[in-house]
């Protein structure tokens, strides 16, 4: 059973925040003046066109939260020549000693194997743990990336389009699983229906600014159209 750790949120319940911060990516300023507070327990969907700065914001959050956050990048951050098991195990590399890691590479640790195969079962990856990652389908690779984030057992989940290449029904199941295992979630998405149905707070980005920041139950799908208008 994976248990959930807690973050000490400080008096106000804010676990991460930006106050008139300037965020940049590759020497290029993306957010000139960003103000944002993330409370413990928030379930945030991050929406916006591609290239609008979702990944930059997630990266900055990840650095702020450091070891409080489980990071689920896009599937291309997997190591294609290692097995699915080893890719999931990598979530906790820092947790084990270097010698344990080295031995595990040659002969999987039985306890870790047990734990990871249970996790894989819940994600529909049963029987695929020994398979090299580049032999898995895009959807399977994405589930391996999610499994790795879950295996980190951290209170805050940060995901960059974690359900982009799985079918909608499975996407719902995966988001539920992520929500169940983490107190706080910040997830970039491109399916706005999923965002409205499964998250409490919607943040919409455009042109280096936050143009929507509201509870999901106060918004409708048409309110979000403004994010995808190209002028």
């Amino acid at each position, binding site marked *: 059973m994976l248990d959930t750790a807690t973050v000490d949120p400080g008096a106000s319940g804010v676990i991460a925040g930006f106050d008139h911060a300037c965020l940049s990516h590759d020497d290029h300023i993306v957010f000139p003046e960003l103000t944002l507070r993330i409370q413990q327990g928030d379930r945030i969907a991050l929406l916006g066109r591609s290239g609008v700065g979702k990944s930059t914001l997630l990266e900055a959050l990840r650095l702020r939260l450091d*070891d409080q956050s489980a990071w689920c990048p896009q599937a291309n951050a997997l190591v294609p*020549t290692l097995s699915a098991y*080893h890719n999931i195990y990598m979530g906790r*590399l*820092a947790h084990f000693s270097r010698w344990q890691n080295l031995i595990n590479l040659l002969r999987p640790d039985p306890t870790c194997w047990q734990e990871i195969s249970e996790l894989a079962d819940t994600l529909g990856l049963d029987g695929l743990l020994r398979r090299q990652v580049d032999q898995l389908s895009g959807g399977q690779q994405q589930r391996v990336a999610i499994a790795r984030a879950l295996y980190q057992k951290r209170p805050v989940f940060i995901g960059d389009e974690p359900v982009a290449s799985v079918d909608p029904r499975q996407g719902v199941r995966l988001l539920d699983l992520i929500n169940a295992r983490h107190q706080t979630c910040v997830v970039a998405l491109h399916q706005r229906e999923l965002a409205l149905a499964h998250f409490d707070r919607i943040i919409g980005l455009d042109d280096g600014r936050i143009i929507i920041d509201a509870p999901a139950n106060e918004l409708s799908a048409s309110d979000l159209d403004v994010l995808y208008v190209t002028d």
Partner: protein
Amino acid sequence: MSRTEAPAGWFSWLRGDNVGARLLRLTLAMIAITLLLLPWADLSITTHDPWGELGRMLKGMLLPDITATESPLRALLLTIAFALWGVVLGIVLGFPLALIFMRSRLVRTLCAFVRAIHELFWALLFLQVFGLSAITALAAIALPYAATFAKVYAEILAQIDRRPARMLSSRTDRLSRFVYTELPLAWQRLSGYTRYRFECALRASVLLGFVGLPTLGYYLESAFRQGRYHEGGALLWAFYLLIALLPWWAHRRLLVPWLLGTAFLLGPWPSVNPTLLWQFLSHDIWPQPLLSGDIAALPGWFSGLPDLLPAIGNTLLLGLMSTVGSLLVALLAWPLVSRHFGNRATRTLGRSTLIVMRSTPELLLAFILLLLTGPSLLPAWIALSLHNGALIAFLAARHADEIRPGLPDIRGINLYSHELLPRIYPGILALLFYRAEVIMRETALLGMLGVVTLGFHIDSSFEYLMFDQAVALLMITALINMGVDVLSRRLRPDALPERRHQPRPAPVGDSV
């Protein structure tokens, strides 16, 4: 108002500032300089019946006599043993160096220096201390290979995808980071390169026979030198079989059995006298005036060196001629093995010809040609051009095979000149300049056969036990090679980017 452009003149293609024009200028300049200097090259044929000799050699190749050599199997296995253990020791030494290669200028310089001296020269040096022993053979292969592995492994590791490493927690230790996110990504290229170097090591191991170690080369040299061509032919066939069957006998699964099995073959092990070793290192290899502190006598010692200028001139000239020769051979030969030309039969024939040219060690090829022509630059030039040209032709053909011509109907020379060559030529030149370093190293080496390059004087200095002189000449050779390496890296096409409008960012880690 319409303005008609004047038709392009003959030389207008050379003037542009695009990559194509620059490569064309570079190529024509190299060919022009070579032609200009050619009258100074000694290309004479001094034997009186070269064609008859060639006929006898071919007859020997066609009718090999496998019973003539006393223990061919032992020579074959010893060749494998030296190559295998040499490469393994090279990896053991080179891999740790690869990890600090990019960070340490000292390591980079040291590796460049060690690489600049050919395996056979290292063998000559170690021979003075360890005699005809396994240590000499293994050190001669392992040392320069370690330097090469350090450089190439470091380059491969620098090119891997960094994204998987970035997702790890910042507290992950260095070793785990390396074995989980860097090594697996680089593994395929690392092992592919190591496999290629093993083939090179087999050739080097054969060549060790030329200094007297009992590998295949030893028997090959004596058979050819004494005109026993049927025996030489059999040994040569054995070597080609060894290379051709490499994928089967050198399978990854057989690595451990081979290592254990050949370990018992390695030998003889020398008894090293520490006093003599110390005497060699501290005294014999240093110029006498330097040891006695008599700096004033140093110019006198220098003037005692053999006439260096002609040797250096010959070395450089042969290097340039062979580079241009390799280019011409490659340009003519790559269509022979490309899917775009000929039919299955011509390609098979072309392939086997090129494989033979590529797998024969240059020194051996030059040695055989030298028996035909006598000692001049001619056999060395032909041998280096054929070997390196065939090697480049293979890679160029592989590159061309990936291209699908834009116009489906054109064939033959039109296909060659309009669709394929313009696309693969930058690649061919890049390979050529990579190879130039190797060609330079071999140019010096060919002196051992009597061609008056630097290697000739190195070889004879060792023969007369003038170690101080031999080591000084080795240093000069290494410096020249390092200089040529720097030059060819500057000229290499991937170092010739389109002129940019923005200044390039300073490389990370370089102090300003």
